[in-house]
């Protein structure tokens, strides 16, 4: 540690540049992580807000809510914790003020069931009449306000916005909460009970018409969700490995320049281990400083991000990634360590 710190202090520019490099890579990693989690949240925010443990869909729907319809005749007996959910893609157009069209999804709920009862609002109240709706809170950034009148494409009667719901995103699309009759009107009749049953219980069900899926199965089958997460995870993984190689190569070059000195030290009987420890701990110091700086930079950036940007950072996860970055950088230092181990005391006299 003595040699490591002294050298970093003496060659501030060299090591400053390496730290800057690590910082930028770490910054990129955390920005990607933030986007990954932010987008994942826009996929699953509603499912989590509903405390979903199990989802019942019609069997032919291929675990896709959009394709699922449950006939009234097929409805299983409901228990506490179960909610009927009617879902339909809709286009809403604002009737009040400047016209605006927005793709959304209608979620029809029953007032006596848990999702409706625990619906968390940031303002207004829950829909109490058939023609009242609650919008996803992030639609406020598009200018939607309480009391606005909207129409669903293909529907004659207009609806009134009476509230804004927290966590109103499902599969990247904002939710329009209404009651189940509204959904039935959009879908075209009462022969369908709902699109799905979202339950807070864990259970199994497999009938000719319906099948129950655990939350994880359902979420992983959300269109695009798994592919998106894998893409981000791969990018983060590659960046980690690249940073490991960069730190290894930089330290390799710096170590090459020090080999004649190291040979003299070895001739004087300084153990090779002292020099190895110096290089490895140097890598650790560089990675820790770079990691912390990138966390700081990420935090500062978050202050300036627009609210509409899907960005969410889990600090425990970010700290875990910093740890992994430090570990990998230290592994990268094993490249120059090989060089040091090959230094012969005899080289000092050549």
């Amino acid at each position, binding site marked *: 540690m*003595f*040699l490591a710190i*002294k*050298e970093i*202090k*003496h*060659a501030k520019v060299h090591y400053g540049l390496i730290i800057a490099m690590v910082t930028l890579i770490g910054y990129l990693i955390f920005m990607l992580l933030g986007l990954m989690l932010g987008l994942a949240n826009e996929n699953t925010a509603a499912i989590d807000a509903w405390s979903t443990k199990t989802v019942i869909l019609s069997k032919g729907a291929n675990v896709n809510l959009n394709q699922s319809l449950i006939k009234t005749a097929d409805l299983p007996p409901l228990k506490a914790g179960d909610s009927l959910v009617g879902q339909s893609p809709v286009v809403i157009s604002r009737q009040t003020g400047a016209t605006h069209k927005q793709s959304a999804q209608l979620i029809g709920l029953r007032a006596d069931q848990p999702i409706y009862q625990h619906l968390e609002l940031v303002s207004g109240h829950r829909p109490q009449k058939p023609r009242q709706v609650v919008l996803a809170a992030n639609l406020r950034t598009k200018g939607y306000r309480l009391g606005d009148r909207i129409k669903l494409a293909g529907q004659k009667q207009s609806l009134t916005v009476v509230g804004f719901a927290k966590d109103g995103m499902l599969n990247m699309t904002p939710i329009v909460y209404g009651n189940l009759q509204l959904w039935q009107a959009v879908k075209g009749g009462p022969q369908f009970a709902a699109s799905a049953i979202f339950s807070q219980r864990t259970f199994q069900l497999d009938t000719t018409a319906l099948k129950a899926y655990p939350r994880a199965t359902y979420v992983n089958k959300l269109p695009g969700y798994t592919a998106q997460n894998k893409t981000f995870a791969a990018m983060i993984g590659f960046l980690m490995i690249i940073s490991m190689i960069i730190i290894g190569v930089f330290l390799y070059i710096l170590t090459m320049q020090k080999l*004649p*000195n190291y*040979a*003299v*030290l*070895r*001739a*004087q*009987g*300084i*153990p*090779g281990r*002292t020099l190895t420890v110096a290089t490895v701990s140097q890598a650790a110091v560089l990675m820790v400083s770079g990691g912390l700086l990138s966390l700081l930079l990420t935090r500062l950036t978050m202050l300036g991000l627009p609210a509409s940007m899907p960005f969410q950072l889990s600090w425990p996860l970010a700290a875990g990634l910093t740890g992994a970055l430090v570990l990998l950088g230290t592994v990268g230092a094993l490249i120059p360590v090989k060089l040091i181990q090959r230094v*012969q*005391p*005899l080289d*000092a*006299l*050549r």
Partner: protein
Amino acid sequence: MNLIELKQVSKVYGHGVSQVQALKEVNFAAAPGELNLVIGPSGSGKSTFLTIAGGLQTPTSGQVLINGQDPAQLTAQQRDHLRLTRLGFILQAYNLLPYLTVHQQFELVDRVKKDHLTPAALQTLLTELGIDQLQAKYPDQLSGGQNQRVAIARALYANPAIVLADEPTAALDSQRVQGVGQLFKTLAVKHHKAVVLVTHDQRLLAFADHCYQIEDGQMTQLS
């Protein structure tokens, strides 16, 4: 008692036609309190001799004893330890780490070796060498002569019984050569070290207790 002894030591580099016999049946001994000078032209085998006498490499044949131990019989770690505790090397270049101040060069020794000079003894040594004012300086802020004196102080700080130096006057002007000769003489006499200098510099002859000439790997004692 002799701290270094070489008996019938030969060293051959390479094989077949490219084979070079760098040392031929060399006999040599160094005792504490003596300045031994090995003088010879470039390519005569001086560095080879010094590395074998310092346990950095082993001879092809013959026997070497350093502080009574044969380095060929020791493990690499034990040889490291022998050099760390008994030998002080002063080489032509790279003796000092560029990123440590003069004072920190000594601190590095502290960290790997318990048995070093006391702070008072170090102070005396630095004053004697005329470098006590330079402790906060980095090697690149020192002149060639100052660099070398710091290297000498660093080697002595570890309190070795044997001091080995390769071409210690290579970087110095005439005036300095006298100073360095005197300094090594003092090391031997006053600090009771076994000092071995290898050089091609005839001007150092005046300071030597024992003089050896080396030519084409063959060593002869001059006086």
